[in-house]
């Protein structure tokens, strides 16, 4: 057992923290959000320059050859600054699909483009009727001469509006909820028949509803092998849980800091409100939840590359519930301890609150994973 970071990992954390501290203040973020894309192309360039966009990819493609712990460290910092850029969508989600299932040709063509900052990707899997059910896919792909034709619609595709390429799951055989018969494809964002309606999510990040009407792609657009996309989708979701868990940890750290500052400075009844024991104890509970959530985020990061399927999926269920509950507790109490100011759009706490809310509804919520764990009790 070992909780130490390597020197490289410490350096990575420090440099990301420094960049965001200098350039990604809450005020600067408001400006980024107002840009057309809803995020900053300039910051994206900075991430590329620092090597963050190549973090999990093999050195052979120009990447950094890092692992889930490196992603965790970066995402913690992103969570402190509420980074708006399509890092999760491009590097973590679509990046995992490419790493796990991509052919040599696909990886050689796409990964260097991601790493250099030229290409953004999205992972389009969820559909409006599917909720958290990973096998519920009604989008179809049928074989045509020299390729495939895709029909259907994907919902709440993170950063789907700006993606140059979209990883799409489609049913190539089987019934609506069959795990077998789901296949992944790579589709150009501006391919004929692709319609994207972009919008802002509650936390200010971007997403899109994307429809596919007889979208034709070549055989080289098949990602992985036919009918076996389900396992890849699972790995993508786990990578997403791990990365977002770390982001929530960063957000919890920040919310706790900001709340403690507020408790020290806000005066009522002639004294700082933090002198009230009932508020001190609530803050102690927030501290404990943050630390317990951090432990679970570490667990998720350690499990990303675990090869024992049962061990991995069980631990992800534990971690998702643990981080989800911690995040909900800390964010709700951060608003509560602030009082009225915590309810305002102008103040930063509500923005963290809503980022944490996004995590709970991504890749399966607390009830979903508690059900999974409950099914294992016998």
């Amino acid at each position, binding site marked *: 057992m070992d909780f130490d970071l390597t020197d490289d990992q410490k350096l990575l954390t420090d440099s990301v923290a420094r960049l965001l501290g200098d350039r990604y203040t809450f005020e600067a973020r408001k400006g980024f959000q107002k840009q057309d894309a809803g995020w900053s192309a300039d910051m994206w360039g900075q991430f590329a320059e620092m090597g963050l966009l190549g973090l999990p990819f093999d050195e052979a493609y120009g990447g950094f050859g890092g692992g889930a712990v490196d992603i965790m460290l970066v995402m913690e910092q992103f969570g402190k600054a509420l980074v708006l850029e399509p890092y999760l969508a491009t590097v973590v989600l679509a990046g995992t699909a490419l790493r796990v299932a991509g052919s040599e040709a696909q990886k050689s063509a796409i990964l260097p483009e991601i790493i250099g900052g030229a290409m953004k990707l999205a992972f389009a899997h969820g559909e409006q009727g599917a909720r958290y059910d990973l096998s519920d896919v009604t989008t179809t792909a049928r074989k045509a001469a020299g390729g495939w034709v895709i029909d259907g619609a994907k919902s709440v595709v993170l950063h789907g509006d700006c993606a140059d390429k979209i990883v799409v799951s489609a049913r190539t055989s089987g019934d609506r909820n069959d795990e077998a018969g789901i296949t992944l494809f790579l589709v150009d964002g501006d391919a004929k028949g692709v319609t994207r309606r972009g919008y802002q999510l509650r936390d200010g990040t971007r997403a899109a509803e994307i429809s596919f009407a007889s979208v034709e792609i070549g055989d080289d657009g098949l990602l992985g092998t036919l009918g076996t996309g389900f396992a890849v989708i699972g790995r993508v979701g786990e990578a997403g849980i791990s990365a977002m868990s770390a982001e929530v940890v960063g957000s919890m750290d920040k919310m706790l800091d900001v709340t403690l500052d507020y408790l020290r400075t806000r005066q009522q009844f002639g004294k700082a409100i933090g002198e009230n024991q009932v508020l001190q104890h609530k803050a102690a509970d927030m501290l404990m939840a943050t630390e317990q959530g951090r432990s679970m985020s570490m667990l998720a990061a350690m499990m990303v590359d675990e090869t024992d399927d049962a061990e991995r999926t069980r631990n992800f269920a*534990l971690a998702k519930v643990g981080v989800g509950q911690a995040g909900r507790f800390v964010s709700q109490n951060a608003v509560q301890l602030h009082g009225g100011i915590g309810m305002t759009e102008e103040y930063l706490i509500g923005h963290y609150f809503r980022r944490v809310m996004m995590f709970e509804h991504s890749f399966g919520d607390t009830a979903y994973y508690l059900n999974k764990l409950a099914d294992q009790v016998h």
Partner: protein
Amino acid sequence: MDLRFTAEEIAWRDEVRAFIDAELDPALRERMRVGFGPTKQETIDWQRKLNKKGWACPGWPEEFGGATWTPVQRLIFNEAIQSAPAPDLQGFNITMLGPVLAHFGTPEQKAYFLPRAANLDDWWCQGFSEPGAGSDLASLKTAAKREGDFYIVNGQKIWTSTAHMADWIFALVRTDPNARKKQEGISFLLIDMKTPGITVRPIISIDGSHHLNEVFFDDVKVPVHQRVYEENRGWDVAKYLLGNERSGIARLGKSRANLEFAVDTARQVRSGGAPLVEDRGFRHRVAQIEVDIKALELTQMRVIAAASKKSDGKPDPFSSLLKIKGTELLQATSELIMDTGGPMAMPIWASELHALGNEPIAPEWAGYMAAPYLMLRAASIYGGTNEIQRNILNKAVLRL
């Protein structure tokens, strides 16, 4: 970063488990599994087996019989004991007094008391709390007046666990009633329970057991050489004692054993025409507890890893987190056991579910269901209430 145990650590766990399997009386183990504590003699026998093996007092300095284990090995050892379940190391002797004597004791005190404490030749109890000094321990009033080579002790201690079976008591007494600060007039004394003037009166707790006592001191003569450290510096000793041993404070092994017992019982209980273990509500409670156990398991390892890196000897405030979350789990798991029992949690003793001639008339688990629940309500009160632990977190970390 790697959260998994190494191969050496797993081998160590297997070694501890194998020792327990070979040496622990199976009947005692089964009684502990269903929620009973060991008797005094059983604890002594077990402690002596550990002592023979060199495992009796792992946290002590090596020269007094301590082990050279890593903090992770300590954790693995504690958890193997708790989840067996086997009797814990006798806390007063091993966790509390031993390190104090090793650190503050005179050579004579060390030479005489430490080997006897490790082998449980003396059973120690702790005389700290008083009727007027609970969470506010430093306001204690039991007086020790110096007369020549003796202190004359008068006063009362309360909540004294196992005082009725103890040979000795280590007690905080007030030697300077006029000290500027209340913490400054306190001394730490070792008192033979057979000394004339000591009276022990039982306190029966809500689980029906006799564990707690009141101890009265009426002109009790204690030789001055039984004082540990300097006169009026007993508060330093007490702080050292309370902050010293934190490995295993979360008692996760015990919570795991409780959870296992609840699930095992739920397989035998029927509800709605099927085993209770298939009930959705029951399964959800188990799932939630499993999440909380996992989170604390990892947090505990982080705290231990951090502790092994620092050398200032100060207690880590995050051990308050381990205490709060650990006792919440002890309470949640014992609550689950009781609720698993359903109506069978209502009779007091299992023996009352036996017909004349001692034939059981109820399932084997019945009658064991409520005692841990009742007993473990104390978990969030003893060792510094969970509210005091939050105060500690505030003072040391949040600084509001």
